[in-house]
């Protein structure tokens, strides 16, 4: 029996169309639009101005707090302007727009493909370098990585859990990175283990990626303390708490962080970025994303520079199919629809999903029939049908008591609801309001 998390979960159609497509390099854009807020937490502060010359890897926006991350230039050229530009959700946010001119990298970045296995830095140096390199969680939540590595006093990390689950349907970027960069990832994991002072790392991979499991298991034998844990394919296994439950059989209590049970979770892509930052001096300004969709000509995986417009990657994958009704940034379960193809790809872009009309059409919302399906699939053990009603009625106190803040917004409830009620939309709304109230109370 394969391991999986203890309660709830669903199994949507996997649709991993691009799993066999090797990572290709996307051409450098002519104009890069780099938002200064590409992570959870305080936006970075722009430190370049119009007319400045920048090189690849140069810091262009400085982290402005503990939970914040540096932003580096992904291209070389001249800063065209620093202005409010539409982001993926249509809101105008400050971005640095760079006119690209050649591809000149900072000298200290090692661009060779050689594998560097020796880790020379100390724990403190690693954490500092990870922070300086602007590394954020590449699973999609974009939480600054150095914050997770700084274990709060009084707590000790026992196990590093590597999230290579990729439970979202369609997405395959982590899968490809594992197949092509396994050694680098292992060194990255060793670096993370050193920073956390743990002896053990578990890589959780779902069994719908047998080739990745086989390859990673084989490579892991060369490194001590790293083991691969095959998991039953089930959504949302990539959630931190679900992954800990699946791999370690420990339950993180409500409102607590994984460190409470001695675990730190990092995405497999983050481990690769950490390897590059420590061993190659390369800050985070490029990553791999999947572009996929049933009617797309060429579902594929691309390494792109942050700031590349979405239209470029669509072009590279064979152009926008005519029946496209919606472009989703991220996977189909947690992704958000984009408002335009001119918006830039960022550190958090793990994939783009092009959906045709018949796939996206929303059905009319009907009355709740109290079937309890949402309750049985909720991986956090919540009662989504009730939370939706409470959020609609603005009963924030009761929402808080019913642990709305535990919701991980996986969307399993909305997915499974036979009355097609927009459960998650309302819960998210309630979560936002309750969060505001809780912050105000502090």
């Amino acid at each position, binding site marked *: 029996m394969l391991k999986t998390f203890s309660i709830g979960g669903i199994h949507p159609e996997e649709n991993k169309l691009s799993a066999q497509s090797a990572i290709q390099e996307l051409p450098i854009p002519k104009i890069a639009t780099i938002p200064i807020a590409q992570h959870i937490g305080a936006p970075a502060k722009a430190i370049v101005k119009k007319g400045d010359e920048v090189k690849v890897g140069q810091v262009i926006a400085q982290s402005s707090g503990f939970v914040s991350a540096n932003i580096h230039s992904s291209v070389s050229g001249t800063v065209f302007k620093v202005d*409010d530009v*539409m982001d993926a*959700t*249509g*809101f*105008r946010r400050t971005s640095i727009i760079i006119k690209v001119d050649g591809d000149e990298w900072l000298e200290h970045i090692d661009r060779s493909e050689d594998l560097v296995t020796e880790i020379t830095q100390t724990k403190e140096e690693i954490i500092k370098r990870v922070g300086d390199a602007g590394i954020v969680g590449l699973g999609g939540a974009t939480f600054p990585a150095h914050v997770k590595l700084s274990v709060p006093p009084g707590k000790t990390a026992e196990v590093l859990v590597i999230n290579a689950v990729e439970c979202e349907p369609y997405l395959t970027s982590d899968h490809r990175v594992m197949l092509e960069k396994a050694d680098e990832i292992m060194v990255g994991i060793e670096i993370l283990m050193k920073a956390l002072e743990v002896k053990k790392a578990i890589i959780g991979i779902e069994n719908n990626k047998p080739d990745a499991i086989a390859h990673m298991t084989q490579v892991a034998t060369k490194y001590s303390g790293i083991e691969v844990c095959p998991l039953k394919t089930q959504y949302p296994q990539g959630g931190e708490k679900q992954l800990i439950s699946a791999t370690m059989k420990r339950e993180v209590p409500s409102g607590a962080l994984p460190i409470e049970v001695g675990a730190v979770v990092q995405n497999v892509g983050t481990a690769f970025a950490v390897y590059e930052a420590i061993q190659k001096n390369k800050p985070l300004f490029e990553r791999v994303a999947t572009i996929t969709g049933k009617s797309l000509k060429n579902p594929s995986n691309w390494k792109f520079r942050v700031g590349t417009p979405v239209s470029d990657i669509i072009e590279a994958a064979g152009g926008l199919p005519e029946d496209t009704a919606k472009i989703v940034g991220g996977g189909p379960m947690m992704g*958000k*629809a984009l*408002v*335009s193809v001119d918006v830039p790809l960022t550190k958090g872009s793990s994939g783009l999903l092009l959906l045709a009309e018949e796939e*996206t*059409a*929303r059905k009319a*919302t009907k009355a709740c029939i109290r079937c309890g399906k949402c309750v049985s699939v909720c991986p956090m053990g919540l009662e989504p049908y009730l939370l939706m009603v409470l959020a*609609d009625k603005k009963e924030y106190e009761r929402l808080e008591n019913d642990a709305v803040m535990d919701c991980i917004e996986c969307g399993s409830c909305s997915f499974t609801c036979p009355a097609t009620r*927009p459960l998650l*939309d*309302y819960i*998210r*709304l309630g979560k*936002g309001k309750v969060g505001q109230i809780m912050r105000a109370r502090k």
Partner: protein
Amino acid sequence: MNIIVITILALCAIGVAAAIILYFVAQKFKVYEDPRIDEVEEALPAANCGGCGYPGCRGFAEALVKADDISNFNCPVGGAAVMSHVGGILGHDVKAADPTVAVIRCNGTCDNRPKTNIYDGATSCTIAASLYSGDTGCQHGCLGLGECVDACNFDAMYMDKETGLPVIIEDKCVSCGACVKACPNSIIELRKKGPKSRRIFVSCVNKDKGGVAKKACSVACIGCGKCVKECPFDAITLENNLAYIDYNKCKLCRKCVIVCPTNAIHELNFPPRKEKPATKPTAATVKPVAAPKAEAKTEEAPKAKPEPKAKEAKDGTSDNK
């Protein structure tokens, strides 16, 4: 037989004893309530809309009775009549508050503000606002899902299917502010009703720079500041590329309406102008300047036929100050 009698007597005795105990307990824990609260509540319109800022009419009545000075209280539904009645009950003098009415500060109709994408999520403006920035290029304006209409308890609003914007029925609006609270983009504002319901306001909340705003919506305020320069009463301020007319200073001269290059400033319930200035020639803008002081009177003249003329004129002047 005997048993039945004894039973009945025993039950009666228990009943009497319980009644006596309950009586004394009730006396002991009696809560004194000012009888005027009931009286005041009776006088209030029982709409329980919350427009006064209190939870329902009962709460408002309690607050009124407790207060030493009720001049800061206002029941927007009942208006001056109800407040003076309440003042009579409580023995306070009441100044009539200026009546207000809700206005929609967005004119981004489907024609003025073309759609760039489609939202198909839950029918709730609050959710839409938290997820994305609206289905047009303007991230500030009306989302068009009608949360304000749902919030209105007085049937004073409806969604205009053609324009996609909410419309306020002025006669029914009691300015309780429910729609103002409901709108996540804060496009609804309570403004002074003004003399004869005449109002001037900037019907736009777009804070984007001129070019961006204009591209997204042809009637957006582009922050050019022409109205600010034109206004002889310093009633208009410009902040974040957006003009705002202070209704306490505005004398309804309508000069700003003429100079606005995007028609973002709206005038309501004014009689039609004699000749509409073509586009924006300076000559036309100068014309109405000729009679700035007499403006209010000359405008009222043609319409003010019925008998409450004097009264309204008075109201008007007090409004302007």
